[in-house]
């Protein structure tokens, strides 16, 4: 079940691949052939369904390119 989502800001990403390397759940495919507007190869959020929104990829991205969202059911959200 999809628990979260990441958004990669393509303008910022430099294709280092660290996000892919550090996602323990294998959600992110390393940069391969998609080019960013800056000319870098982009990683791809390939397996969103595995993401548990742990935040690691975002914290480890050296370029502040990733925002991680956690999906919270409305009742849950209201409770917190």
């Amino acid at each position, binding site marked *: 079940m999809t628990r979260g989502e990441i958004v990669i800001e393509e303008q910022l990403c430099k294709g280092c691949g660290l996000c892919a390397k550090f996602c323990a759940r294998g959600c992110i495919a390393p940069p391969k052939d998609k080019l960013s507007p800056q000319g870098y190869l982009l990683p791809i959020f390939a397996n969103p369904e595995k993401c548990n929104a742990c*935040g690691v990829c975002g*914290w480890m991205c*050296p*370029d502040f390119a990733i*925002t991680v969202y956690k999906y919270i059911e409305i009742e849950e959200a209201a409770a917190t």
Partner: protein
Amino acid sequence: MRAEDVVKQVVCAPPKLKLPGPHHHCPGCHYGIILRLLCEVIEELGIEGQAIGITGGGCSARWVAYLDVDMAGGIHGPGVAIATAIKRIYPETIVFTIQGDGELGAIGLGSFMAALLRGEKLTTIYLNNACYGTTGGQMAPTTLLGMRTTTTPQGRDPRTTGFPFHGAELAASMRGTAYSGRVSVHTPANRQRAKKALRAAFQRQIEGVGYTLVEFLSPCPPNWQLSPSDCLTFIEEKMIAEYPLGEFKNVAQIDY
């Protein structure tokens, strides 16, 4: 779970103190991760209004444009001297320097040692990437023995260039030092430890104890001529072997 029942909570986003826009670091350089830690720690400690940062001449020079606090820099070497003056004039501010290993271990070595001797109440974020990154990867005082650089094309030989410089241990050995530790951000777990160390260092400055320093190991992919991923292995296997991670000093009071 239907889409409309779901709220997206931001778990991780660019920190508040990071000014918008891209930075100029190379792909896979950990300076960006360290910059993030710095933003987070300043924010969490609530010292954004008192913080003043001084950058050096290395690749972190331009952090003046990335971090939303009072900043100055771009000078290769004398960061701690500049910072000392500011802290002495405004003792209530929180003053930190960001300095490369080429800087702290070479041209700024005298200023660094002198500030240690004086026990200035500063925080130094010391970036050890085993080379002069900015200028193209020349041998730095921290270059590992045997490592090839543009000025040690045969690999660094201790007989002619001496031994690696251990900044954190040196700082820890001085009486006026409140905090000294070496960290790395090359894995998520290390990143968390690094953040703790950085926070502890700033905390000691806030308490007014003494000099505080956190040495960060960091890769330099273009100059090491390794991919970002191979850099992680190099840090794990080679850098840490020469530069062990750990907290070398953390005291609540200097014995005057």
